[in-house]
């Protein structure tokens, strides 16, 4: 009996484990990095304690697609032999590949799987399908599993997809994509902070951390901008992040976690009370931040960065926002599916982890959807692992082996013809 390896090969993180289990056994960044202390590019480990200040990064994936198979081979090799401890020649692989992969990339992937690693058999799946599968199995009597149809909004590292799924198949003519994901947001944050306070253009890992800890989605941008403009204690959004100094701490941290949580009080109406005694607390100077201590303040950046997913036009991109993207994805499907799709929107992907992402999306989506349709947005309990869990489920299903392409078939038919089996 061969084991099935489930590999969600994301642009940011690789989620890998054995089919049938609930959680992946390894999650590592899909990159090699070179810290300042090292001359060579190193493999990341799950429990990294290294100083990642100014570490250079090389990623095999660009804009969501595999462009550097050599680098990917290197990373997978490390993954299979050192972290998962499997022997590819007697195991099957379930691999995720983004939608609309190019033939040349598919060929490179197949070569990697069969010729370089020699896997027994391979199944390629697109992520939305797996997310749908997982959600349908979690709630067997819910709408998603009864209607066998859902709209998966996958806001990941490289891009954002809104994909209608019907009867476990992604309707590829309905898929819409925004070319904006976590990576672009991190880089945008980097750009803002570098211009306004400290140069952090080299600090990908640190800025990722800043983004994850401090950014949130605003429910009312105009109001929040006004609040962010205030001085002193009335500014609920100001928050200080301390950069690592390399001596006492090698990881950056939020200076005052309570301060970082303050934005939550804004919606409770607390901001109206403090507004009156605004003049009294105006003693603190704006230039309070001490640059020698290597820390910087964030105010409006905290919500303007995730804001770009909802309005890419603000960034100068000629693309519609997420709400409109969903509407277009739904509209390109059969009209009978529309109410079902709007009622079963599933949010997945790491970039949906920004606080209040779902609320904001619903707020924006509701005016765009016809009145008589309900809008229901489901969030996953762990959006990063949603795809992997679906894959694990699929891998443990009894007819999984029959769906795979075996090595012998690949050798006989070649990449392109084997790919037809996966219908995308």
């Amino acid at each position: 009996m061969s084991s099935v390896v489930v590999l969600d090969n994301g642009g940011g993180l690789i989620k890998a484990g054995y089919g049938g289990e609930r959680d992946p056994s390894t999650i590592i960044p899909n990159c090699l990095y070179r810290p300042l202390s090292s001359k060579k590019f190193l493999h990341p480990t799950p429990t990294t304690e290294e100083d990642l200040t100014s570490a250079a990064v090389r990623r095999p994936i660009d804009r969501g697609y595999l462009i550097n198979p050599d680098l990917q081979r290197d990373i997978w090799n490390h993954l299979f032999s050192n972290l998962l401890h499997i022997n590819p020649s007697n195991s099957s692989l379930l691999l995720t590949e983004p939608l609309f992969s190019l033939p040349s990339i598919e060929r490179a992937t197949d070569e990697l799987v069969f010729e370089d690693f020699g896997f027994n058999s391979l199944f390629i799946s697109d992520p939305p399908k797996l997310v749908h599968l997982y959600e349908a199995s979690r709630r067997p009597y819910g709408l998603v599993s009864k209607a066998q149809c859902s709209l998966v909004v996958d806001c990941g590292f490289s891009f954002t997809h809104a994909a209608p799924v019907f009867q476990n198949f992604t309707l590829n003519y309905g898929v819409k994509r925004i070319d904006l994901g976590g990576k672009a947001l991190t880089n945008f944050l980097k750009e803002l902070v570098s211009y306004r306070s400290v140069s952090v253009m080299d600090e990908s890992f640190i800025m990722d951390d800043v983004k994850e800890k401090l950014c949130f989605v605003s429910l009312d941008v105009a109001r929040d901008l006004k609040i962010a403009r205030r001085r002193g204690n009335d500014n609920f959004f100001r928050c200080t992040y301390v950069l690592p100094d390399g001596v006492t701490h090698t990881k950056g941290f939020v200076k005052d976690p309570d301060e970082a949580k303050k934005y939550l009080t804004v919606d409770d109406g607390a901001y109206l009370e403090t507004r009156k005694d605004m003049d009294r607390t105006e003693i603190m100077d704006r230039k309070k931040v001490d640059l020698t201590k290597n820390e910087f303040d964030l105010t409006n950046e905290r919500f303007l960065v995730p804001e770009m997913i909802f309005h890419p036009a603000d960034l100068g991109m000629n693309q519609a926002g997420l709400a409109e993207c969903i509407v277009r994805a739904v509209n390109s499907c059969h009209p009978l599916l529309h109410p079902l799709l709007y009622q079963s929107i599933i949010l997945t992907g790491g970039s949906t982890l920004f606080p209040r992402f779902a609320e904001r999306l619903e707020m924006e989506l509701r005016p765009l959807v016809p009145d008589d349709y309900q809008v229901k947005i489901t969030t996953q309990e762990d959006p990063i692992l949603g795809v992997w869990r679906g894959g694990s489920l699929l891998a443990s299903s009894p007819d999984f082996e029959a769906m795979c392409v075996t090595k012998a078939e690949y050798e006989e038919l070649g990449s392109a013809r084997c790919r037809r089996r996966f219908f995308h």
Partner: protein
Amino acid sequence: MEDDVSNPFRRMSMRTRKIAPKMAAALASNDNRTQAAIARLEALENDYTGMETVEAVDDDEASLDDDDDVEENVLRYIEGVEVFCVCVICLCLPLSFYLLVPVIYSNASSVLARQASVYIQKKQKGTKRKTRQAKALENARKAPRNFLELLHEANLEALPPHIPSYLRAAVGPPSSTCRRHFCTVCGFTSNYTCAKCGMRFCSIRCQKIHDDTRCQKFVA
């Protein structure tokens, strides 16, 4: 600048101006604002890969065998010997008219020569491995470096319009063209546009900062 292009017979100042080549290239294009905007968007997908030159050196190191280490050791050893010889020679210089020193010197120099010849041999072997052709081939193998090149190679425009593809899956332009503008300096809503470069700012204070730090520096 655009006047110059439209009217070539206009009398121009004969003063030679020194402009950085990148700046000249940017100024030569008619629509450099859009180009700058596109470049900025492109940059959002970039990784910080460290210094390019350093990386190239690293790659070479990784591709070579252990011989390199030997080479390096030999090199270091030779340096050591050399230093030692020089010291010996310096110390013994007053005596160098007498018998003793030429012997040592000749010994040392012969050792040196032998080592050096070893080193040269090794070095030649090392350089031989990296011929231009091999390098060109290697580069050609690595050639499609980013996704956009691969996309161009795949020629998706040639597909019939009913087949969904990467290009057709893009969400397309927003229905309303109204764009909110944020001040590039402080991030608040901005009402003003820089007349020179088209970036936004919200107040005179921000304008000053913009002029000092960012205005028309987008090519550098």
